[in-house]
């Protein structure tokens, strides 16, 4: 167990190193000239050259990467080219909003997805089951910007129940969380359905029924906890899905998180911010997978860590 965890941590670190390298290569190759951008249009060639010198942009590729990596190891993600602030500080100031949004999305997808899955499993092979499963397919087939705009139109513009965008109160959270959780609700409902069906077929459920327990007792006391376990292991993996979704959802709702930060930086070719957000997202994905793998054997002792 101990050696497994150690190996997985090393593996994860290697993946992060690879990602930092890949992102660096990618952004090194792009045609934009950061020094010219920082200096502005009217700057002299000398000023641009000075800035280039200052940022180390005239160094050979490997030295630039090495500089970046040493900075990273000291927790320094670099400085934004245009906002003249530390990227790390920018991300930290935006992170709470994103985490709050993700939390809301997890709550939404679990409530919607699990309810749909349980109902479908109990009404297996009926019209209700089929329509719920088609609905879950609609969930995984819907682009998040369409869902977001649709929810905005119905609940903010027409009904006026929620604000059109922004951040601050519980009311602001509802629509973005629903939008971000919609996709996951589709996945969860299908997983929950098959997990529940598997559990309901097992012997201990028949035993529970045979010893005269009420249907609801069997369902909520025996079947549900067991069917839920494999689902919980998936929450870590969800973080990866979210990391892609936040860029769109935050831009639709004007949510001030790291997705919006990344999107603004991409439009202005502010490379240090793009790299910083990519690394933070990759870190979250790696961490999520790591946690999912780690708790899997506790949830199902048949899984052995290797």
């Amino acid at each position, binding site marked *: 167990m101990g050696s497994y965890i150690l190996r997985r941590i090393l*593996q994860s670190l*290697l*993946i*992060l190193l*690879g*990602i930092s390298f*890949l992102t660096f290569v*990618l*952004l090194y190759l*792009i*045609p*934009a000239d950061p020094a010219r951008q920082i200096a502005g249009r009217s700057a002299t060639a000398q000023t641009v050259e000075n800035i280039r010198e200052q940022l180390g942009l005239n160094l050979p590729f490997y030295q630039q990467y090495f500089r970046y990596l040493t900075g990273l190891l000291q927790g320094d993600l670099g400085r934004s080219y245009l906002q003249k602030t530390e990227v790390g500080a920018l991300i930290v100031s935006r992170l709470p909003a994103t985490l709050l949004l993700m939390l809301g999305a997890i709550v939404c997808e679990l409530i919607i997805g699990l309810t749909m899955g349980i109902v479908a499993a109990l009404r*297996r092979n009926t019209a209700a089951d*089929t329509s719920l499963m*088609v609905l879950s*397919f*609609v969930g*995984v*087939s*819907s*682009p*998040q*910007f*369409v869902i977001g*705009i*649709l929810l*905005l*139109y119905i609940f903010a*513009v027409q009904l006026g129940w929620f604000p059109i965008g922004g951040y601050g109160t519980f009311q602001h959270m509802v629509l973005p969380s629903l939008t971000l959780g919609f996709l996951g609700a589709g996945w969860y409902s299908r997983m929950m*359905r*098959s997990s529940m*069906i598997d559990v309901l077929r097992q012997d201990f459920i028949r035993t529970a029924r045979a010893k005269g327990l009420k249907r609801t007792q069997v369902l909520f006391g025996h079947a549900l906890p067991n069917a839920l376990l494999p689902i919980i292991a998936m929450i870590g993996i969800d973080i*990866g899905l979210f*990391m*892609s*979704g936040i*860029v*769109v959802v935050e*831009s639709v709702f004007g949510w001030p998180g790291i997705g919006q930060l*990344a*999107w603004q930086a*991409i*439009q202005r*070719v502010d490379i240090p911010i*793009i790299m910083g*957000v*990519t690394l933070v*997202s*990759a870190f979250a*994905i*790696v961490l999520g*997978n790591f946690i999912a793998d780690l708790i899997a054997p506790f949830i199902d002792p048949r899984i052995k860590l290797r």
Partner: protein
Amino acid sequence: MSEAALHPETAGMPERTVLQRLLRRKLALFALFLIAVIVLAAVFAPLVAPYDPSEQFFEGLTLEGAPLPPGPDFWLGTDLLGRDLLSRLIYGARTSLIIGVVANGIAVAVGAFVGILAGFFRGWVETVLMRFTDLMMAFPALLLAITLAALFRPSLWIVAMVIAMVNWVQMARVVYTETRSLSEREFIAAERSMGAGTLRILFRHILPHLLSSIVVFGTLGISTTVLLEATLSYLGIGVQPPTPSWGNIIYENQTYFTSAPWLVFFPGAAIIALALGFNLLGDALREVLDPTQKGRS
């Protein structure tokens, strides 16, 4: 005498009945219907579309210059430039399908190639390829695609390449896992002991076994591709106007969505219909093609 009676041992083999079994499923039929409608509209766009998709009609705007709602002249209404929305949607289907087929085709080919190489040859080939695949798995896909698309000057083909670069990973993992377990099976060892070469084993014995997974994940992949293209185009870094794409129609018109919601709803519905079609078809194919799933659910 019927075919089945002549060859009782092959009667009911999956190869013979995949299509029949697929057509017995209502959801698969529904999926095929959705896909067929969109494919036919795209192929016969010049015949089906009521107007030229880029023609700006003077009578396509109100006196105040606002887009027209759905009506007898313009069935789905007009957009902010007075162009017919239905015609733009029909031509937009071409964009979605071209990207769906090209980008997903490349992703499937690259993914399958990487997966087979890593799973069959093992050793350092496996280590290098699969560690790289792991790395790509941890890359936030949309963020990567957005960055790439924003940095290159987007065109239809660049967008297709960007999507392919992001989407091959899933296929590589699936094919890798299957190839690995296949190449450890006895019949492969038997082939090799009878003197079969690497290429013969790969093409005659490994590839045919992988086909059903490639078909299933290839079909599901079209849906992912369509959604990614729509998202990139919605952000303004995918397919560029005036070429109509369902995503960029929403991008162009979103400022009007409170007064002209049809400009978001109809293209949105088209995206969902196409993605849903391929998702349902892929799922049905999985159940029809995968013998281990038989009798479940």
